[in-house]
């Protein structure tokens, strides 16, 4: 078995109309890891997933899943992966149970095995009570859970989740996060997920790749990425108008001190430890601290650093995203 569960080298997708959706990306996902693709709508997340799950052909580059080439050994790839797509794909005219059995049939799992598995999965996603209801009567959260159950029917080693909590309420989102964590913990499953929610990437992923305009701008663990910002930021003000820059910079863990509009911006590798030390040092020298705040860096700041725009701004360029979607749709219409 290869070392990485997923490995992509120079993976590229250019649609017929010349739109470069994914641009020479390289990354690898280790076994049992939760790996997240974070980026705004239209960044190329779904196109990357579509290539990895073998429903879109890469224009250039290659990728392997559990050692099988996605282009040359697509059947082997399909057998070993599970997919929970962005859309609700269950057949609305069938019941939840029928949908799961249909998925099992698509993997060629005999009925003797699939009936038992379907019952277990319905239990897992807490849909047993509704299994004989038609899917058209299901709520959004129930449908998501059903998609999850379908994606797990072949007991995949690698599970792909495309925007798993898109459009879900806060409660259902939290429940989904718990399922994802449980899959990793209980089954040692490798999970690849895309999201445009920063807090989701932060809460779930072992490692994150930030993707923008089809390119990976940075990969790392959430804390590595946050550390790359230079640590925590302490802002403070004192009573007297006196320069205390020298005094503060001698305190342990302090990396940088800047004076701005009468208050001090202090970068520290460990804000919680540094803040009391600074107060202590200032008091010894007869200064009175009037105001102090500690900011831990968030992925939003990471995102801002690497893409040059905040996640919110990127989200707001909806017109651009819309144009891109239209181009994608045309090129395979």
């Amino acid at each position, binding site marked *: 078995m290869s070392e990485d569960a997923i490995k992509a080298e120079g993976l590229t997708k250019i649609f017929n109309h010349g739109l470069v959706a994914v641009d020479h990306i390289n990354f690898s996902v280790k076994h049992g890891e939760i790996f997240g693709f974070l980026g705004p709508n239209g960044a190329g997340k779904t196109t990357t997933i579509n290539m990895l799950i073998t429903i879109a052909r890469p224009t250039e580059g290659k990728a392997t899943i559990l050692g099988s080439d996605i282009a040359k050994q697509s059947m082997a790839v399909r057998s070993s992966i599970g997919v929970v797509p962005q859309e609700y794909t269950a057949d609305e005219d069938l019941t939840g149970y029928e949908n799961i059995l*249909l998925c099992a049939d698509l993997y060629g799992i005999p009925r003797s095995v699939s009936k038992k598995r379907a019952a277990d999965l319905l239990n897992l996603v807490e849909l047993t009570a509704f299994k004989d209801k038609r899917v058209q009567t299901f709520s959004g959260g129930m449908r998501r859970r059903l998609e999850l159950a379908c994606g797990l029917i072949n007991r995949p080693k690698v599970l792909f989740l495309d925007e798993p909590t898109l459009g879900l309420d806060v409660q259902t989102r939290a429940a989904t996060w718990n399922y994802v964590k449980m899959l990793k913990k209980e089954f040692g499953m490798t999970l690849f997920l895309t999201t445009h929610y920063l807090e989701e990437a932060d809460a779930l992923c072992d490692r994150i790749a930030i993707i923008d305009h089809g390119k990976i701008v940075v990969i790392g663990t959430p804390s590595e990425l946050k550390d790359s910002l230079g640590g925590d930021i302490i802002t403070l003000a004192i009573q007297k108008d006196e320069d205390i820059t020298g005094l503060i910079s001698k305190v342990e863990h302090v990396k940088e001190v800047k004076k701005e509009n009468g208050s001090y911006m202090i970068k520290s590798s460990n804000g919680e430890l540094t803040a009391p030390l600074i107060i202590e040092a200032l008091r010894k020298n007869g200064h009175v601290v009037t105001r102090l705040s500690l900011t831990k860096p968030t992925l939003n700041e990471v995102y801002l650093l690497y893409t040059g725009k905040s996640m919110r701004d990127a989200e707001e360029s909806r017109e651009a995203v819309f144009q891109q979607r239209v181009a994608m749709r045309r090129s395979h219409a």
Partner: protein
Amino acid sequence: MSEESNVSKSKLHGLWALTNRELKKWYQAPFVFVMGIIQPILWLALLGKAMNIGAIFSSGALPPLPQLTPALTPSQLQVLGVYFAGMQKQIMTSTFGTADYFSFMAMSMVAFTTVFTTAFVGMSVVWDRRLGFMNKVLSTPVSRSAIILSKVFAASVRAMFQAAIVAAIAFALGLQTGSNFSVFSIFGIFAIVFLISVGLASMFTALTLRSTRMEMPQAIFQLITLPLMFASSAYFPINLMPNWLQAIASVNPISYTIDAVRRLMIFSDGFGPLPLDFAYVGIFTVVVTAICIVLSWRYLNK
């Protein structure tokens, strides 16, 4: 974690599951199901009975006999009457192969119901694409041909059911069977209807394989149905058509299907070219289905 030993290695696994899904959607929707039965009743009752071509030759449609001298005796008049009545039947039979135009047309409806039923198979391909179901299926180890064949077979089963209903209604409305008719004719009709349905469904699927737009299958349906219907022997014998239309009608697989159905049910002059009908429709179906499967390997993915 994964249990590969549990997984069937058959190339066409999933075919039955997907076909069954299509059929379930059909028979579990009572409204669509009933509409599908009503439609052929309307065709037969309205069109079949309205086009009463036999009535053209009835005595009421002819001017009264001129007065002759000496006047015809009653027995001569009777002979003449029998002669004209026989002539009507003979003209009808030599033109349509049966004296009853309704029977002639009813059989073309049996064949033609396959076009109406299979034409919208493209719709379900487009639906599945739009709703994401297609993406889901494509990411599973089901072969592309199984995905396509499930659509084709489900449409064919529906077409056979519809054809059986049309035939039953035709019987109820006074179909006159010929001396060729026997119990085996029914098997023969199912066979030819199945063959042509698979061919047509493959053709319509191939034409909409890449489309994500609902308008596409409709446009194709409108473009293709009319020539299929009128450039065939559905309403009128091919040998009485102008040459250019004869040329089109004689390559139209529907013509051969209609001929086979008529030969099995209402004709009385032997089976003659029946093997040719089956061979032609069979070859059409094999070729079109093969093209459709090859296209599905290439075009189902993004």
